[in-house]
């Protein structure tokens, strides 16, 4: 291992080990400690190397160099072809529109909810209702929305039935327009917003825990500020820096999403990321150079997008300063409450009905437009598809479990090292951790696939687990870091004073006490793995398929009942994961009152 890497890794992931003298344990750290010290480095290498290689392997062919495909002379040819492509302007426009709009809407909705409903019962209820949505894979939600919003979807059926009851029948035949795959990408925007709002809310709530929000608000309220205004003027400026990275991750994701775009987005042309994927799959292999250039353009768009967003943050901060300090007290916030409450209710309703549509379609035998419910039901679709579904289901489960287990071990080792060495990670470390979430997947997966083919690892389990690990690890780390650091150090110290060696303290004290967050982190990691579409497509090389790749593949046109079976199965796995994560501690600790949450 080269020293510079080690230095950066140690400094960044494990934090600045600055106050050396204050860390007397460091000099007489046992062997296990040294092993532990290697974990942050190992984690970073496992984590950043494939992305670095993948980016390299994408940029080189973008300039025409890929000897395996006969490209031996570097040049701007692929870029020229890319920019001459008649599909490109529309695709880029659509990408920017859906990416920015969905991120802005999700942020406004989640901030608005937190501001307008802070401390209320509604807020707690919204969080509980949104939590399962966090676990639902993007593809399953998109398919559900398709069943809800398409021309012959549940919504149109509802309008037809409702208008029929009122005696003014409309849409007795499905309307010729549809609300999915619309040319402006509004359905895609809506789907993304729905999926990202719970994540942002969770991040806002977590960030709120770190500032003295109640005190701040109390002071502001006694000064006569309205509740919403108080939150926006005093809390938001404090927590925004902490949710900045998650917001960028959401923006990057929305600008480069593939699976949702394939299902909900238009196809003439699609957004850039699916267009690039189409080029990668073109039978004409020279199109791969153009695809590589497109993948690089995607990376640039995301980078520019984040820069623009940052600029907008600055601008808003400047423009809002007079308002912030101007002393306007604001009203009761009734309008904000109504607007955000209504928006939230609508979003939740859409999500719930979409997911219910999956269940109903999977059990329908005959469900003709404009019937509101199937006229005949059957278990036959499940029965017929279970054998074929079993194989991808096992792959989904196996890859998810393996990636989650590895991520847990690495995360826990990093956190243990951090705790024992008495260091804290820096902002830079967080940026590194977020790298896989900020770099668009299509921007490096092609290069990574080339690497896997060279290593003869494509289509194998290790490759698939590795590719999932890149995305599972950050989430597991983010989910586990706070509870781990919050554990009262005195427990560990007491055990050590009683003569327990570190590993024993870890197994008998730390791990049992943190079992609940560990399992929740595992459930989150598993859910992230289940949802992966593009990594599975590239690393699985068609040999290894998951419920996600099958569901997205089917969504293009197969029998709705079959699509529903796959999407429902895909949605169920992570939800079962969360149920297990909640049930196991409850069962284990049923005799220990102190361990109940």
């Amino acid at each position, binding site marked *: 291992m080269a020293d510079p890497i080690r230095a950066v890794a140690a400094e960044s992931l494990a934090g600045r080990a600055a106050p050396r003298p204050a860390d007397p344990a460091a000099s007489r750290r046992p062997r296990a400690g040294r092993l532990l010290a290697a974990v942050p480095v190992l984690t970073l290498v496992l984590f950043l190397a494939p992305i670095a290689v993948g980016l390299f392997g994408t940029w080189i062919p973008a300039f025409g160099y890929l000897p*395996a*495909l*006969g490209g031996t002379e570097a040049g701007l040819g692929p870029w020229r072809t890319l920019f001459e492509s*008649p*599909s490109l302007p*529309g695709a880029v426009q659509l990408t920017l529109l859906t990416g920015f709009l969905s991120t802005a809407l999700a942020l406004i909705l989640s901030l608005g909810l937190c501001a307008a409903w802070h401390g209320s019962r509604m807020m707690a209820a919204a969080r509980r209702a949104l939590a399962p949505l966090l676990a639902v894979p993007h593809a399953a939600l998109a398919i559900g929305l398709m069943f809800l919003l398409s*021309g*012959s979807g549940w919504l149109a059926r509802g309008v037809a039935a409702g208008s029929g009851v009122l005696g003014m029948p409309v849409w007795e*035949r*499905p309307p*010729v*327009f*549809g609300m999915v*795959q*619309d*040319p402006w990408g509004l359905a895609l925007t809506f789907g993304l917003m729905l999926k990202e709002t719970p994540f942002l809310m969770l991040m806002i709530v977590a960030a709120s825990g770190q500032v003295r929000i109640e005190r701040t608000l109390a002071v502001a309220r006694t000064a006569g500020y309205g509740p919403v205004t108080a939150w926006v003027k005093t809390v938001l400026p404090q927590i925004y820096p902490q949710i900045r990275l998650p917001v960028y991750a959401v923006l990057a994701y929305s600008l480069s999403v593939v699976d949702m775009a394939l299902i909900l987005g*238009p*196809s*003439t*042309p699609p957004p850039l990321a699916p267009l690039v994927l189409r080029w990668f*799959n*073109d*039978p*004409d*292999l020279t199109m*791969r150079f153009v695809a590589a250039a497109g993948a690089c353009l995607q990376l640039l768009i995301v980078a520019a997008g984040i820069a623009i967003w940052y600029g907008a943050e600055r601008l808003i901060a400047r423009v809002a300063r007079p308002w912030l300090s101007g002393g306007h007290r604001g009203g009761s916030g009734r309008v904000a409450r109504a607007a955000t409450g209504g928006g939230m209710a609508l979003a939740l309703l859409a999500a719930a009905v979409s997911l219910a549509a999956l269940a109903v379609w999977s059990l329908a*035998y*005959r469900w*003709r*437009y404009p019937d509101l419910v199937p006229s*005949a039901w*059957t278990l036959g679709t499940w029965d*017929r*598809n279970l*054998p*074929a579904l079993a*194989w991808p289901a096992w792959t989904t489960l196996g890859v998810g479990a393996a990636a989650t287990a590895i991520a847990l071990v690495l995360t826990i080792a990093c956190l243990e090292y951090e705790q024992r060495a008495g260091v804290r990670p820096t902002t830079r470390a967080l940026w590194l951790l977020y790298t896989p979430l900020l770099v668009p997947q299509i921007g490096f997966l092609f290069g990574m696939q080339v690497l896997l*083919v*060279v290593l*003869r690892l*494509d*289509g194998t389990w290790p490759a698939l687990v590795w590719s999932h690990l890149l995305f599972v690890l950050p989430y597991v780390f983010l989910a586990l870091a706070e509870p781990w650091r919050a554990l009262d150090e005195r427990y560990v110290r007491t055990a050590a004073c009683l003569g327990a060696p570190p590993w024993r303290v870890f197994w008998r004290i730390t791990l049992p006490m943190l079992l609940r967050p560990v399992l929740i982190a595992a459930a989150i990691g598993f859910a992230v793995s289940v949802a992966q579409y593009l990594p599975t497509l590239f690393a699985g*090389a*068609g*040999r290894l*398929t998951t419920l996600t790749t*099958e569901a997205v*593949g*089917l969504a*293009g*046109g*197969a*029998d*709705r009942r*079959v699509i529903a079976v796959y999407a429902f199965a895909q949605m169920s796995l992570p939800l079962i994961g969360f149920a297990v994560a909640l049930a196991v501690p409850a069962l284990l600790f049923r005799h220990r009152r102190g361990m109940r949450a």
Partner: protein
Amino acid sequence: MSVRTLIAAALAAGLIAVAAAPAAAQGQRDWDDILEEARGQTVYFNGWGGSERVNAYVARAADRVLEEHGVRVRHVRVGDISEVVSRILAEMTAGRTDSGSVDLMWINGENFAAMKRNGLLGPPFTHLLPNYALVDTEGLPTTLVDFGEPVEGLEAPWGMAQLVFLYDTARLEDPPRSMLELQDWARQNPGRFAYPQPPDFHGTTFLKQALIELVDDPDIVQYPVEAVDFDAVTAPLWAFLDALHPHLWRGGRAFPQSGPQLIQMLDDGTIEIAFNFNPAEASAAIADGQLPPTVRTYVFEDGTIGNTHFVAIPFNARSRAGAMVFANFLLSPEAQLRKEDPQVWGDPTVLDVDRLPPPWPERFADLDRGIATLTAAERGRPLLEPHASWMNALEAEWQTRYGQ
């Protein structure tokens, strides 16, 4: 016939029999070796996975070869087989000459031509399959020439397909019976017709059907596209589409993504006329609760495109023997009968039914082909597919004109 010629004929027949006997024995020995080698292998069978019935059929066939020959078949479902062609080509350019990711693939037409052109297929293998002898190569010339490309034993016939149109007799009395009639009909019924977005093969087939009907001389599309003036030949097609598109579902700004989606849209009443490459699809969909029992199929006045689909073994297949065992099973009377059964799949067989040993001819004759399935006579002689090279050319031009 004179005595001499009779004797000569008998002699010749005897000679052939004598010559054929060892050859047959040799073939049997080879086949036994192949069966031996195949036992325990896993075959990755890559094919279009968009139809539940097809997938169920493949799953059942996989079970059968596992129990009979110990060959495990994994069905890798793909959206379009061209993705797989591209992957194999990438494997070849990366120098992977063995242990490729695909053992057997469902293929025909331009994809077969591309594989053949790039040397992505292994040596000929159909002569090694005992059941290949049952194929009706005389009555079905498309089993030997695939979209103008000689097959040369590189792919084994699997089934027949012919374009048929579907409509609901309860809603539509007199469906259009040519492309030009369709255009008029669409103008009077805006938004009630759609075709899948090329390069989906149902969509591309629609383009080819329209092209054959609209060109002055349909024979011209049998030549490679490079040999003709593409712009001039296809001008009527684009004029036709330009006029048709504003009257399509969603004004031709969005397209369905596949053939099966048309079936669903027909059932919804979103569209009035659908089409499919499987003549028995409508009957099967009725039996399966996907279409009302009033749906019927028909073909255009001047006929519709028909073709054969095949299975082929890539050059770098890991389980070549296993792939051959599976290909042979797919050609067995048992498998072909199931394939023609509309309850199962509904594709017409590639076998010469009359030459099969009893009881197979009776069984084929006794098949209930379903309420909405046309007989071979009603379907008429299928129109030949344009030469394989037309597919990409049409798709690319379509993309430029309408895919933005």
